[in-house]
Every structure is written in structure tokens, then in C-alpha cells.
């Protein structure tokens, strides 16, 4: 696995909001095709970590490199870097004033200056793959949460990103819609996409991850393969965290 090319390199980043320290000395190397699942209690800094990776948050210290290029929200090339990092949010955030198709083709046409016809053809293919080709002319409000989230994933994919970030993408969904979104992500995993996934779906994490990172209190507490992490976590904190997902029978 580590023979693959390094795509993303995070070196000793810190993130502080005024006095509150959210991330402390995080370092991580992501290789091409690797799927990393990040878990941890709420408030542990996992969303902030993802947001630092594409420069939505500025790090207080440390460096992030994508393909050897520094990620810096204040630099001029940040928009170019963001095109290489796809991100999907918990609240989908489709653009409400655009149709589904327009949502998908907007950024490639506007930002990447690609040809509209070509982008449209690709969009149709991708939307078909996630089972939404009948919805292309609808507006986001006419879709269910699960459908919207699938569109949001397509909207990120069509930019041909090198890395995909998923920030608790199923957390806002009704239980019966979680599966349809996870299936799309499983499909992406099979295609050997490089992904960083923040999630609370432990069964999914176990199935899809190459590595599981357990964040707590702004630190990486564990970084191991899923079997090791879920079956025999090394730290007491991880054990305690995992136990919150279990119920004892009466």
C-alpha cells in the first residue's frame, strides 16, 4: 500500500479558535487510492481537520501539501487546489436556485472552463450511475435528503478530484436513506478513489476503510487498520468511544 504515490501530506498542523485549541500536532500521509475513515466523539476536531485540508479553515501552525503544493487559504492558487479536492458536506448544500443538472455542471463549466456539452454528457452518466437520471430537471427542494446527497457527491466527482472529503454525509439523513448514500460511497471505494471519510457509521467504516484514524481532543489517538481498531483497540479512550455504539441486552 505504501508503495503508492503520496497524494496528501499533513505536517504538524495546529488549529486554534481564539483560546480554544481544536487540533494539536496532527500529521498524516495519504497515499493514492487509500481510504481513510476518521472517527471520534463530537467536538474532537474531525470536521475541522477536513475543512483545513481544502483551506476552508486556516491552520494556526504546520503545513498541508497536495501533490507537493502547499494548501494555503490566503494564496492565489487556492481555487486551483480546491478543484483537486472534492468535498461533500453533511447538509448537502446544493444550490437551491439551480436544477440538479445545473448544480452538477456549473463548477466544471464556470471554474474549469470545460466545454458544456462534454460536461453535460459526463454529468448524465454520473447521475445515471447514482440512479438519478430522471431528476435532472428538478430543483433540489423536490428531492429527498438521500437523493440530494447523491447529487452532492456527483457534483464533487465531476471536477475529477484527486482526493474526496466526506464530512458526516449521512448524519442529517433519515435512517432509510443512509444506505443509498453509503452504497454510492462503496461504489467509489471499489473504483479505488482516494477518500477521507468522517462518519459515525461504524459498520460502514469497518467495511470500507484501509485505515481508521481515531481523533480525540484534537489528537490522533489511534491510527490502525479497521480490524485491529474495531476488534482490539489499543487505547482505553478508543474502547470507551466504541462502547457507546453498543447496547447490552436486557
Amino acid at each position, binding site marked *: 500500500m505504501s508503495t503508492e504515490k503520496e497524494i496528501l501530506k499533513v505536517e504538524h498542523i495546529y488549529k486554534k479558535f481564539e483560546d480554544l485549541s481544536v487540533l494539536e500536532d496532527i500529521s498524516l500521509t495519504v497515499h493514492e487510492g487509500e481510504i481513510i475513515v476518521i472517527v471520534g466523539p463530537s467536538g474532537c476536531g474531525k470536521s475541522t481537520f477536513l475543512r483545513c485540508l481544502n483551506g476552508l479553515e486556516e491552520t494556526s501552525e504546520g503545513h498541508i501539501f497536495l501533490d507537493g503544493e502547499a494548501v494555503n487559504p490566503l494564496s492565489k492558487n487556492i481555487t486551483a*487546489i480546491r478543484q483537486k479536492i472534492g468535498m461533500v458536506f453533511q447538509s448537502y448544500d446544493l444550490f437551491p*436556485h439551480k436544477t440538479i443538472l445545473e448544480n452538477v455542471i456549473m463548477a466544471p463549466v464556470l471554474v474549469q472552463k470545460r466545454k458544456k456539452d462534454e460536461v453535460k454528457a459526463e454529468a448524465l452518466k454520473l447521475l445515471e450511475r447514482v440512479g438519478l437520471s430522471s431528476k435532472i430537471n428538478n430543483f433540489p427542494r423536490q428531492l429527498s435528503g438521500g437523493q440530494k446527497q447523491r447529487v452532492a457527491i456527483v457534483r464533487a466527482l465531476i471536477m475529477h478530484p484527486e482526493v474526496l472529503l466526506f464530512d458526516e454525509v449521512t448524519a442529517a439523513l433519515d435512517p432509510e436513506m443512509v444506505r443509498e448514500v453509503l452504497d454510492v460511497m462503496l461504489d467509489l471505494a471499489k473504483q479505488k478513489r482516494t477518500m477521507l471519510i468522517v462518519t459515525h457509521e461504524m459498520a460502514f467504516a469497518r467495511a470500507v476503510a484501509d485505515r481508521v484514524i481515531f481523533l480525540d481532543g484534537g489528537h490522533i489517538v489511534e491510527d490502525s487498520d479497521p480490524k485491529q481498531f474495531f476488534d482490539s483497540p489499543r487505547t482505553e479512550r478508543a474502547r470507551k468511544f466504541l462502547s457507546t455504539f453498543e447496547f447490552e441486552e436486557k
Partner: protein
Amino acid sequence: MDTEVLRSYLPLFREALILTVRIGWFGIALAFAIGIITSALLHFKVPVLSAVAKVYIELFRNTPLLVQLFFIYYGLPVLGFQVSAEWCGIAGLGLLGGSYMAETIRSGLDAVPLSQTESALALGMNKRQLFGSIVLPQAFSTSVPALVANVIFLLKETSMFSAISLMDLMFTAKDLIGLYYDTTEALFLLVIFYVIMLLPVSIAGSFIEKKARFRIFG
């Protein structure tokens, strides 16, 4: 009511309507331009200019158009700024309307969720693309009812033009009443012509309101 009198007055009112509509729409276009620029200054908190924008908005929202027109038309020439009555009307309506539009558009801009901005940034958009394609269109949609209300308000305010001797509908009616005492006929035509000018806008406004709301909120 004397139909003969009505018929003879008709061309005068038609002239006046054309003038009123022309100045009105020019003024409203200017108001939109001022409103968009001013609200962008406030939204992006541009240093110095946003403070100027705030003062401008407060000054023009808290004074009557009639007073603004008197100041521009009679007061400013003293300092050497002489403009025709027509341009004065356009400027007055544009400045008054700009302050209303700015407030309306700004509250629309502020209502666009931060997550919309972030997901556009995550797609690699720059600030200009973000503002033009994502934030401004949504701000417009949410503020359509208030924008329509502003347009109707401004069209009504054109009735103040008569005070600076523009031969608008109001001026024509007043003139005819003063000259011939055909009060009933003049007032009747005045009302009819304002209905002609404003009812379509009001109806179209309600229609656009429904449509814009439907588009975003369902």
C-alpha cells in the same frame, strides 16, 4: 362627468404618463445599480466605503423624497451643480431607491447560509464567481417580495416630481384643475392613469413573488 372634457384631456395625460414612466424606470434602474453596489460594500465589509454606504443609507431612508428633490433641484445649483428637472428626478429617485434597495439586498445577502458559500468555495470558485453565481441570485430570490414592494413604492413616489415642475401625471392634473376647474374629470383621469401604470406592476409582482418563492422553498 363630461366625456368631451375627458377626451380633450386624454392626450395630455398620455404625454404625462410617458414622461412619468420614462423617468420612473430610469430612476429605478439607477436604484438597483446603487443598491447592488452599496449592499456588496456592506456585505464584504469593505473598509471606509462600507461606512460611507451606511451614512448614505441612513440619510436617504430617513428623509422624504420631496425634500431630497428640493435640495437637489433648488439647493445644489448654488454650489454650481445645475441639472435639468428630468435628471434631477432620476437622480432623486435613484438615490432614495438605492438606499431602500441596498437594505433589502443586504438582508437577502446575509440570509444566504454560510454553508452555501463554503460548498461553492470547495468547488474551487473564486470570490467573483461565488458572489455572481451563488450568493447574489439567492439573495435576489429571497428578497423578491421586498424588491417588488420597493419598485411599487418608487413608482408611486414619482408623483413628487410635479414639485420640481416636471410635467408628470400629478402636475398635469393640478394644472388642469387650476386652469379650468374640471376637477372631477382631471382627478378621474389621474386615478385611471395611475392604475394603468401601477396595477400591471402590482399583479406581475405578486406573480413573480409566488414563482420566486416556489423555486427555492417549494
